[in-house]
């Protein structure tokens, strides 16, 4: 008589292969300053920052059900904090980036208390109002250039690294580091107890609540943590740009519309989705950018079609066909002969 034994695992062959490949790619990316050109490094740096924003937005919308169209509030806030803390606080840019994350978390607490009163789609527009309040508020601060904005003084830029090549490498590594940090943090969070609670809320709020999950508190934590990270990414974005203005810092198109399209096209509610979405987005942008506004129209149409025809996005299509998960979150039962 033969017995079949089953084992419960989280990992899979595909995930292990992907992890090894991922590590190799990561090493190659870390070494980019030695093999990539300046323009490529700039582009990749931007890609990593968009990947971070998309992963964070996906955590809020795809898992916590907090669909925000106002994340530009924290991108802009982080950017302005970088400028204010370095220019008036005399902080080193790296310290300013870390501190802007903490300040982002602090300011998001009263904001959350207020806008969590709005449900569903009204929450979305409420977040937009907050972003507008931030934009108009910072436009009133004349020390930061008011409505026309200001540039980061040369001395502060030089304090990062005196040589231009070194600065560019450092800026690239910061962006890469941010993306790795954000993706890893979200992955580990979703594997934790709190992450399980969050996934339960995503699947059925009423059922999750009946199992004793504090929905408001879980969502609140996600909102505050996401805001803190988003503010840090915002600081990094404007460290690369070296110039800030209210309209650029709080742009709904740049920091929210694109991010939403990335997540929807890639696959909302998965960790892999934003990664694929970011790659597709940059591929489309680099090939269609000459078309200007037409490119944005195409992007909007693609997002609508994906939402209606394949609501789980490109990664959802891949996963339903091949049953693979690169970032293993759930458990699977495998048969051992």
């Amino acid at each position: 008589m033969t017995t079949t034994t089953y084992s419960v695992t989280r990992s899979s062959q595909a995930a292990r292969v992907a992890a090894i490949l991922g590590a190799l790619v990561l090493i190659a990316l870390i070494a980019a300053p030695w093999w990539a050109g300046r323009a490529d490094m700039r582009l990749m740096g931007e890609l990593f920052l968009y990947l971070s924003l998309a992963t964070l937005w996906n955590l809020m919308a795809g898992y916590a059900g907090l669909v925000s169209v106002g994340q530009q509030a924290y991108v802009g806030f982080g950017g302005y904090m970088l400028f204010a803390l370095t220019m008036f606080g005399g902080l080193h840019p790296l310290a300013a980036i870390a501190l802007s994350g903490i300040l982002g978390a602090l300011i998001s607490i009263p904001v959350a208390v207020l806008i969590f009163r709005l449900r569903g789609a009204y929450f979305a527009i409420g977040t937009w109002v907050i972003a507008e309040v931030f934009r108009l508020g910072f436009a009133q601060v004349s020390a930061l250039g008011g409505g026309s904005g200001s540039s980061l003084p040369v001395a502060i830029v030089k304090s990062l690294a005196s040589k231009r090549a070194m600065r560019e490498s450092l800026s690239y590594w910061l962006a890469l580091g941010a993306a790795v940090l954000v993706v890893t943090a979200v992955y580990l969070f979703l594997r934790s107890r709190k992450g399980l609670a969050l996934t339960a809320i995503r699947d059925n709020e009423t059922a999750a609540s009946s199992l004793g999950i504090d929905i408001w508190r879980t969502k609140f934590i996600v909102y505050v943590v996401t805001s803190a990270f988003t503010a840090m990414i915002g600081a990094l974005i404007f460290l690369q740009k070296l110039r800030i203005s209210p309209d650029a810092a709080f742009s709904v198109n740049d920091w929210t519309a694109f991010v939403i399209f990335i997540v929807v096209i890639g696959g909302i509610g998965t960790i892999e989705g934003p990664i694929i979405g970011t790659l597709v987005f940059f591929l489309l942008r680099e090939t269609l950018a000459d078309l200007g506004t037409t490119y944005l129209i195409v992007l909007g149409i693609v997002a609508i079609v994906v939402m209606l025809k394949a609501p789980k996005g490109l990664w959802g299509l891949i996963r339903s066909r091949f049953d693979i998960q690169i970032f293993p979150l759930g458990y699977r039962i495998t048969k051992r002969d």
Partner: protein
Amino acid sequence: MDWLNAIVQGTLLGGLYALFAAGLSLIFGVMRLVNIAHGDLIVLAAYLGLTVTTATGIHPLLALAIVVPVMAAIGYVLQRSLLNQTLGDDLLPPLLVTFGLSVIIQNALLEGYTADPQKLSAGGLETASFALGGLTLGVLPVLTFAIAIAVIWGLQWTFYQTALGRAFRAVSDNQDIAQLMGLNRRHIFGLAMALALAVTAVAGILLGIRTSFDPSIGGGRLIFGFEAVIIGGLGNLWGTLIGGVILGVAQTIGAQIDPGWQILAGHIAFLIILAVRPNGLFPRISA
């Protein structure tokens, strides 16, 4: 006297905001859809008005005779071909599809009309005014306010006195039972969106006569309309009018203190009301 003037002007401005909000309120009431592209549709109506007035040379208010039916037709087609597919228990599809629509409309307008600010020319109406008890009132703001009251009264009448309104209320209460009673909810939703965009057309033309507009201002108009809806309380059209007035008065008082504070003061008034009365001042339905 300056303050009294600010309050009166703000009240009249509130009429325009109530018109921004009425369409939003109507479709949320009937199908629980929040249309993120609403502001861009207002701007689209203003541009349609521009095309009609420049092509035919007629007065913008007469252009309503063309723009209103065109917008209503766009609304019906949009609802039946696209938005009906997004309705269901999941909140994400309608939100993301209307968000995509907003980006598409905005950039299509940019492509067709460029980013240059435009204005609808209404001749003497733009500057005409009359004196009333020491205040000078513009004819256009007073007319806008009167139109807002008429539109909201008309929507109320449609909702509570007509067969169409009964159908709206039926699908709003329970879609499945309404369907069993022989109402085609897809058609009813199409009619609701047509009616909402007809109101949007009026709002867009009045906006275009009052101020200059460009393709990027849709988001701001959506926010004003949304704030008026929330301040007034969900599902209450007269509440929406009061919400618009409160927003308008907050803005003109803010502008009276410091011109840079106009829009910010409106947002702050909204946030204060949200903090004190989360369901708005006169709620009728819960979201």
